[in-house]
């Protein structure tokens, strides 16, 4: 066996690609920052960076949950509606009981999100409805429930207690509270997918659902868990949304799912399932938010944002697929070479 082949396993090769991927996003981020710093006045100011951090925070919180789902080769389109619904419910709770403790309301929002996510999970794992169809339907259903509850009305910032609004406006150590929360969620998420056995199962399911089943992984239960967690984090996202955008009505967070999915896909989570990191997702979200912020400062039409989001998804998916394919081919060649070498040794 030639020395160059020693020590290279599929795992190290895949890990190298992922690191390359994160490096690539960092590079793009650096390029974007450099470009906007030169072109846009005020881009490189503390205030602007704090704004970016606030914008990116909710995307990261919801994106961590979405990642768990995408890892299993599924997708959750309903997060936009869950965020909207829980945002309204959180705001409504504060409007009615201005003394309600923050953690309790947050927990209620998370619990509601969990239930909605659970429904998605059951539809996908038990009723065997393809995730895209199931969550397209619940996207409409949850939004419909939201409209029912709001009854066309809205809640304004004046009705909400100051301590809730402060959640978005305070900046401990110069970093907005929202960003601290997002960082916490991302770190916990990263630790979970790195070390928790159940989340390693998610990768296995995404890589090969049939093989995962044969390996004795409770596929259905894990998929349900992923959807439930995605819903729960969307619930937390909704709670944060209400403090960030305190005028909440029935169209809150409409279309937000596209922002989240863009961040996740750009962050290198493979839409075929089975690969992706939370660091990548956080960087992806940051890249999207930075570019959008730069667009705003340069007074580029809001409408290009939508186009950019979609374009970025297509480009990221294309690059991912091409790289994955090259990687698989390289691995196959290597295996064949190794096999041939072993045969030669045995013959000699």
């Amino acid at each position, binding site marked *: 066996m030639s020395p160059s082949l020693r020590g290279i396993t599929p795992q190290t090769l895949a890990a190298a690609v992922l690191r390359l991927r994160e490096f690539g996003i960092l590079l793009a981020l650096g390029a974007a920052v450099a470009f906007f710093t030169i072109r846009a006045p005020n881009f490189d100011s503390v205030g602007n960076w704090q704004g970016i951090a606030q914008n990116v925070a909710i995307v990261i919180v919801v994106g961590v949950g979405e990642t768990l789902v995408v890892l299993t*080769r*599924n*997708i959750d389109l309903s997060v936009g509606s869950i965020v909207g619904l829980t945002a309204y419910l959180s705001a409504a709770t504060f409007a009615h009981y201005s003394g309600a403790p923050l953690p309790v309301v947050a927990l209620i929002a998370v619990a509601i999100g969990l239930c909605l996510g659970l429904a998605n999970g059951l*539809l996908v794992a038990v*009723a*065997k*409805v*393809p*995730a*895209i*169809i*199931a969550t*397209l*339907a*619940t*996207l*409409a*259903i949850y*939004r*419909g*429930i*939201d*409209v*029912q509850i709001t009854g066309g009305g809205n809640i304004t910032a004046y009705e909400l207690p100051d301590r809730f609004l402060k959640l978005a406006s305070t900046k401990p150590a110069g970093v907005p509270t929202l960003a601290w929360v997002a960082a916490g969620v991302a770190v916990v998420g990263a630790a979970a997918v790195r070390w928790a056995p159940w989340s390693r199962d998610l990768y296995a399911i995404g890589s090969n*659902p*049939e093989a995962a089943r044969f390996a004795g992984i409770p596929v259905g239960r894990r998929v349900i868990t992923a959807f439930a967690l995605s819903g729960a984090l969307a619930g937390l996202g909704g709670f944060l949304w209400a403090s960030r955008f305190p005028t909440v009505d*029935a169209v809150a967070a409409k279309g937000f799912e*596209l922002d989240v*999915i*863009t961040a996740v*896909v750009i962050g290198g989570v493979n*839409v*075929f399932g089975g690969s992706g990191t939370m660091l990548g997702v956080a960087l992806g979200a940051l890249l999207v938010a930075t570019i959008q912020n730069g667009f705003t400062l340069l007074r580029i*039409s809001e*409408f*290009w*944002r*939508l*186009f*950019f*989001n*979609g*374009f*970025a*998804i*297509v480009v990221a*998916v*294309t690059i991912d*697929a*091409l790289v994955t*394919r090259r990687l698989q081919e390289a691995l196959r060649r290597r295996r064949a070479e190794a096999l041939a070498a072993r045969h030669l040794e045995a013959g000699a």
Partner: protein
Amino acid sequence: MKAAQAIAVRLLARWETLLVVAIVGAGIWSTTLSPFFLQRANLLDLLTPYIFIGLMAFGLAFVVIAGEIDISIVSNMAASVVCFAQLYAAGVNVWLAALIGLGVATVLGLVNGALVSLLELPSLAITLGTLAAYSGLAYVILSGEGVASFPAGYSKIGGGYIGKELPIALLVVIALALVLGLVLHATRFGRYVFTIGSNREAARFSGIPVARVRMTVFAVSGLMAGFAGVVYVGYFGSARADAGTGSLLDVVTAVVLGGVDIFGGAGSMLGVFLALILVAELRNGMQLANIQGDTQDIVIGGLLLAAIIAGNLLRAVQGGRIRVGPLRLARREVVEHEATEAIIASKLAPENLKGR
């Protein structure tokens, strides 16, 4: 006697029969809501506001039967509508502009098709991306304002009547349904679509030009989005960049409720047409019952889920295992058998033998 019984059972077990029953049921419900429901003019006009949804559903049906999905279809319609409107506003003849709109829609569909079939990318992620991208494109092209003064001669295509009662749009949708039904069920291309949807590998090994057919399927979906746009402008008399936003649910529901297998390989144009009638009837009925649009979405969303779950249960009862996993895992023995025969027949066709 036994044969008659078998035929009766098979007819009853057909998805289309269930749809007809549901349509009659929804019709009875509607008559209890309004005595005007059963009037001829009302019945003929029932579909008119939903024609553009039906046209998109016809296009999407091809894609889904081929085992893929195209959720960008609604923003494709918006983009083509906007191109059409801007050209018209710039002084181009309205029919020529409409024709160019169709071309734009087809090209946008082809872009999806090229990415999916040539680069072998997942249609779900690609069309999710182009859903946003085309919608952004529509906004950028229209730059915010709408175009709203189309000539009366043109608007007839979406909102005009023959003899005061027969909507022209209804004729358009029936004509296109017939043409597409023939293409899907009576041409070699149609059989290829079914075969690729049931088993792409097998299709490849039997010499079907898989990449070309899959690209064509997305082009058909784009073209139908274009036709939907033409009718949409005719009906609403205006072109806005958010045209068709929110109709994705209805389009997908019409396709799935129409009995098209979401995993590919099975479906019929008649089913999609019947499902369109059912969706239109339900929306119309809920309108009569004073149920708001977003609340209607709850019902339609539930219907979509119910249709898939019912399909899964039906398969489970019929002895087959419920299938798992994402799209494109389907296998329909009957269709496959027919398709294989079609392939053999086409292989033996004189024009194909000549080249060898």
